[in-house]
Structure formats: C-alpha cells, structure tokens
C-alpha cells in the first residue's frame, strides 16, 4: 500500500516521541489499543496550570506507519491548545490531514481515543469528573 507523503514524513521524523512524568498532577496519560490488535498508543499531555494551555505533549506508539503518524500529528496539534479545544479534535481531521485510506481510519480513531484518555486522566487527577466517552466500534 502506498502511504501519503505526510504519513511517511511523520514516520521518518516523528514529532514529540517521549515520556512525561506521569506522577505529576498536571500530566495526563492515555494508553489505548492492545498488543493483540497490533496497535498500542500512549499519549501524554502536560498542562500549564496558570494559562490552562497544553504546554507539552509526547507519544509512544506500537503500530503501523499510519498509527505512528496519527499520534505524532496529534501531539503537534495538542500543543498550545486548551484542554477544551483539545477535546474537539476529531479523528476525521486526522484522516483528512494524513490522507489515510479507509483501512487505516482505525489509527485515527485510536489517536482520538488516546487524546480523550489523556484528558480524562488529567481531569481525574485534578478532581474533575471523568468525561464519558461516546462508545464507538473500532
């Protein structure tokens, strides 16, 4: 299968690979997917408590090129956004930006789930109620 140039670029030069200190209260961690399915994404956000903006985002992904590219792109988009703005990121935005073919849409869904999971983790840590994610089939 031919990958889009943007997928290849994110795969070759992934942005924001790494690990944030998950013990910090202003860091939210989302771990989604399963090794059996061939995709595991871990996405982390660090929120600047004064401004309320996401000051840093990191990922590590086990998966195909599209999964790596989706998570790399997600971390780029997260930085500088408020948590509420981050919640608005939709998987179809990722599909469009990366030109993902239909069989790879699940990679973008996983990235959206990882963003939501990281935000929820941050919310719970900071005494906010967990957001109930809409159920979707991958």
């Amino acid at each position: 299968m031919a990958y889009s140039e943007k997928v290849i670029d994110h795969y070759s030069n992934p942005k924001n690979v790494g690990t944030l200190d998950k013990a910090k209260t202003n860091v939210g961690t989302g771990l989604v997917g399963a090794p059996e399915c061939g995709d595991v994404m871990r996405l982390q956000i660090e929120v600047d408590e004064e401004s309320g903006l996401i000051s840093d985002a990191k990922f590590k992904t086990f998966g195909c090129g599209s999964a790596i590219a989706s998570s790399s792109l997600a971390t780029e988009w997260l930085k500088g956004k408020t948590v509420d703005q981050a919640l608005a990121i939709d998987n179809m935005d990722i599909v469009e930006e990366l030109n993902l073919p239909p069989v790879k849409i699940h990679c973008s869904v996983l990235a959206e789930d990882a963003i939501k999971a990281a935000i929820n983790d941050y919310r719970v840590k900071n005494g906010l109620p967990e957001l109930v994610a809409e159920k979707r089939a991958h």
Partner: protein
Amino acid sequence: MELKLPIYLDNNATTPMDPRVLEAMLPYFVEKFGNAASRNHSFGWVAEEAVDYAREQVAKLINADPKEIIFTSGATEADNLAIKGVYEMYASKGNHIITCTTEHKAVLDTCKHIEKSGGQVTYLDVQADGLIDLAELEAAITDKTILIAIMYGNNEIGVIQPMREISKIARKHGVLFFTDGTQAVGKIPVDVNADGIDLMAFSGHKMYGPKGVGALYVRRKNPRVKVTSQMDGGGHERGMRSGTLNVPGIVGLGKACELCMHEMDAEAARLSVMRDRLESSLMELEETYVNGNREHRLPHTANISFKYVEGEGLMMGFNKNIALSSGSACTSASLEPSYVLKALGLGDDLAHSSLRFGLGRFTTDEQIDFTIDAIKNTVIKLREMSPLWEMFKEGVDINAIEWAHH
C-alpha cells in the same frame, strides 16, 4: 559490485524468472505457436515434441515417470484437482480427508469446499515448531479416510514436514498421500518414490519459471492413482485436465526444472549459509525469535519476530529498499495476523511483529549485509518509539495490563 536497490527478499511469494528460462520459451510464442493437440501437421508435432521434452524435464526433477505429470495453470489448480479429484474418484471408499492448519489457502479452502459438499475434514494442529504430530495423524485415520494432504515445505516459516513418515502411515492404512510441494520442489531434493508421495502439486513461478503454469504429479504404479477431472473439454492430459496446453509456459516450467536439477544442491548450500548469517545477525537484537523448526526447514526461508515492534510499521522503515513480507496483516481489512504463526501458538503480539525472508537464486551477500543493517536500525528506532518496549524495559508485565480490545 555496486548494490542495486530495491532488494528482493520475497522469493516465497514469487521468484524472478531465470533469463535462461525465458530464452527457452521465446520460440514458442510466435515462431513455434502450434497446438500440441494438432496431430495432423508439423506445427502441432513441434509443439507436442516440446511439451513431451518438458514433461521429461519436470518428471526427472522429482524422480517420476513423464506420464505421471499433469500440466495445470499453477499450484492452486493442482491442489484443487488433487483434493477434489480424489474426493470424487474415491467416493465409494470414503469421504474423509486429513490435512493440517498451516496449509496454504489453496488446500484449506478446497477442503472447506469438500466439507460443504458433504465430506469430512480433519484439520490437525501443528506443534509449536510447526511440525505435525505423527501419532495424532495416525489416530485421525478412520475407515472412511481416503486422503492425507500435508504440505512439503511451509511458505511462511519454511518448516519441512516428515514426508517419509507420513507416507508410511498412509500406506499402512491404505490412504492416499497428497502434498503441496510448491515451496520445496526445485529448492531441496524431492523424490516422489523415496518420499512415498501419491500426488504432488507444484508451480513454475516459485522456481524461477513463468507464472501461470504448474503441475500435478499423479502416481501411476503402486498404487495407480486416478483423479476426477475438474475441467471438462477436449480430454487433454490423459483426461484429467482439459484445455489447450500452455506450450511456452510448459517449456519454461521444464527448463526451470532442469536448471533446478543441476543447480539446486549448490544453491541450497549457498542460501542456507546466507540465511543463517542473516538470522544470527538479527538475533543479536534482544527479544527476537525465530518462528518454526530451524532444523527441518527450507534453506532459503527465515521467519523472525521482533517483539514490541509492529511488522507493518517495521517494514515501512525499509520497504523502499527491501521487499519482504510480514505476518502482520494490518494492511488487510481483517486486521488478523498470520494464521500460520497463530497455529504455532504465537500470541498475536509476536505474530504481528514478524518478518518473512525468502532468499533466492539472485540474492547476494551485499544484499544481506544491507538488509541486516536496515532492519537492525529500524527495529532499534521503533523500539525507542514503542510504549511496550518501554514497559518491558521497566519490568512492567504487559500481559497483566487490561487492554481495551477493539
């Protein structure tokens, strides 16, 4: 010698045609175009003579009689003809077939077809190394069993099943033995008499011959085996496979067999040294596993899992320069990893992390050097990016995590 990219290491999928094969075929397209069934003029005689000669070349490679070779369009057709043909021909004797779970789809799906039409099929599990359990095989035989269908060498892991032991069991119980020899014929010595094979399918394009041509070996003596034809028409190939013979293809298959006959031993020795070097270099990486039995294995095949990296993602690191296959079927809509690797009992994680290397006649040491470097670098890079690798390094038990399964 300068290294030319991309490198082809997917010879279990198909092999490039040997230029000597092409040369042998060329006259039979335009100049010697006759129909081998035209008995009344020289155009037909020339074609028939070429087919007869190819039949001898093919038979010789597997120590068969030329009359025992039925030309087909490839191994898939030969698999179908053997299994369905025996099922129909021996219906009065029984309706039970024994095969195993790691067979090629051409065998498995044909068996499923048999089940739909009322037959019984036993699918033997394989052991962790990919070999079948002979005691289980014998125990599965009933008074209704008419055929054992066990492949020679596996296309994904290269494991060679014990042909002689299987055929002994088949003989003892008066059951016919069919093998899909597609990956083995032309690569390792295959002798239908010494191996006790009654029917065998194989293909031209896996042994440096053309695509679209293959053969079914059908034993004529001790016992005399017959199959019901699956293609009706002019009664070609002793009534077992109608259809105008693909003369250039058959000439190519014959030439490919002759070349394998002469070069196979030296080639197998050369490729197994190269394969072993590739394997041992890659095994220097931590958490790397060879899939399948390493002793009973085709000399040109290696299947390796790189734990904590995903196969398709791994291939993307070098597939511009190196062509090979992955056991991860992430590209397919099913998202299911290889059924062969799963049959060995591999977890989905290891199955998703596997690469299949198929070396061939034109593989060079320089290509292997380049491949080793490219794969090692990519594995290291992707593991740095893998959350599973990080957990493994931190001593987290990945199996203890409750993963959200899609």
